[in-house]
């Protein structure tokens, strides 16, 4: 009961995965993992390669359904919803590999993402870049992600760090309440990492954020809750201090030397 009261003060649960399992033939990629994302907090998932982190994100975002278990978004059961419908309901995700549209400008990348919230495909006589709703959202998202200066640049010509920022900007452009970020810091330099962490710190206020990341320093700095996965199973979950001191985590993941 105490734990429950404590959680309530932390913000409402926006996304909940309940006992999610994913099997690929005989292989169990994720085994009965439950996870809760609350508004105003960053929930990091760490684990070695192949621990099932990306599979977890894919089940939450709806890329494929769980073999068993369920997903709840903003209080409704969305297990059977296709990915696009979940996205429109307020679930944004970024990918581990860059999935920007390299031939479009930075602005058009964000604008196209923002268009998802006001698609109106039948109004074919209207120019897409004249829709103020979309362009304003796109501009704001790019600005939050720190891409103000490069709006007209072709996305494929950005630096690696800027591409990662764009990936997040496109995610923000749809105005999601839940953000699933798959390794947003991958391949970033120290300065870029710092900027991205600051951005995540700002975004935390209005969003529930799931962060899959390999950069342990960053994870322990920014996360409110950390879940540790090994071979598809959740072996520990708690605040950073408790994870740092957990003996199971030390042996299983951080290595025996610690």
């Amino acid at each position, binding site marked *: 009961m105490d734990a429950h009261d404590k959680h309530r003060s932390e913000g409402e649960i926006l996304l909940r995965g309940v006992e999610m399992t994913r099997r690929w033939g005989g292989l169990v990629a994720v085994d009965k993992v439950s996870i809760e994302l609350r508004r105003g907090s960053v929930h990091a998932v760490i684990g070695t390669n192949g621990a099932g982190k990306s599979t977890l994100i894919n089940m939450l975002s709806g890329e494929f359904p769980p073999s068993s278990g369920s997903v709840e978004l903003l209080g409704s059961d969305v297990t059977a919803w296709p990915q696009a419908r979940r996205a429109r309901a307020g679930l944004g995700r970024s990918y581990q590999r860059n*999935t920007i549209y390299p031939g479009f400008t930075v602005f058009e990348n964000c604008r196209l993402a923002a*268009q998802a919230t006001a*698609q109106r*495909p039948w*109004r074919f006589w209207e120019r897409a870049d004249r829709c103020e709703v979309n362009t304003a959202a796109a501009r704001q998202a790019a600005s939050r992600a720190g891409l103000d200066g490069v709006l*007209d640049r072709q996305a494929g010509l950005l630096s690696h760090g800027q591409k990662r920022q764009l990936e997040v900007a496109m995610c923000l452009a749809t105005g999601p309440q839940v953000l699933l970020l798959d390794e947003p810091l991958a391949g970033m330099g120290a300065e870029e990492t710092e900027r991205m962490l600051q951005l995540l710190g700002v975004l935390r206020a209005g969003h529930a954020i799931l962060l899959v990341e390999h950069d342990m320093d960053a994870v322990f700095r920014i996360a409110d809750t950390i879940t540790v996965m090994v071979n598809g199973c959740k072996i520990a979950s708690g605040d950073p201090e408790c994870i740092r001191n957990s003996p199971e985590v030390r042996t299983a993941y951080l290595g025996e030397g610690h």
Partner: protein
Amino acid sequence: MDSLRQGDDMNPDDKSKLTFVGGLFVLLAVFPMFSGQYGIDLVGKIMVFAIVALSLELLVGGTGLVCFGQAAFLGIGAYAAVKLSPEADPASLLWLLPTAVLAAALYALFVGALSLRTKGVYFIMVTLAFAQMAYFVVHDTPLGGGTDGIYLAMKPVLGDVLDLDRPTAMYGFTLGCLVAVFAFLAVLQRSRFGRALAGIRVNEQRMKATGFSTYPYKLAAFTISGAIAGLAGFLFAVKDGFVNPEIMSWHLSGALLVMIILGGLGHLRGALIGAFAYVLLQEFFKSEAIWGPFARHWHLGLGLTIIAAVALLPRGLVGLPGELRSRLSGALSGRTTPTEA
């Protein structure tokens, strides 16, 4: 704010494209005044091919869907025009044209609904299979009038205004359709619908993750494309006054793909240029005046030319000016560098 207002004044690139296409349409409009019957017939045929090529460009270059069965929709439009025309009186354009277009669109809706569940090579094969199905419905059956095809007894009219039996009226009407289709697709490309299709072409998975249900978008594109191909089929049937199963053959579907690749994928102009280049090359290699008895082997010359064109111009004929410019400036700078140094 700059990029928001970008659309208000046209950038030079858009302007030169508009000049090219506008100029081409003006040339086509005045062409009959300077040409004989053969020329009018040939250019009329090219314009109809250009309309189908544009419809295919919407799928291949616009959405990233390689359809290998476009001839089926063309054929359905053509057969609908011939089969539905009454024997004794000319049909009115007002109902015959929309009906032919609708018939093709409905078949496209059906084919699209099933084939769009597959991807890549499978999609190519499934669209081909559906086109072959349509082909064998008209090939050597009473419905299609056998291999010889069927004749259109009376060409449709629009009251007293337009009689498509007159070659110049037919030419003008075809040109009008071509301009309308081009304008429609150009507007579509810039709309939210068109931008979503472009996003699907580049990365469909990301579009889904962003919140776009991509299947209805692709199905809409497929149906619109089929409808436009049906319009071209109608024009073919009315222009020639008959239709035979060859209009639905996979050779034609393949030739249409070659046209848009030759012209340059991803550009509406490419479909126009490709249709002209393909048909004119075909006429050239078929000409007995030039090649003598060797003209029988026109496939060889046409094939080799297309291979050469695609190898030398990977972006198609649309990329030719850019290619020349960079070669030229490269050659110039190569010559001037030593003197400057």
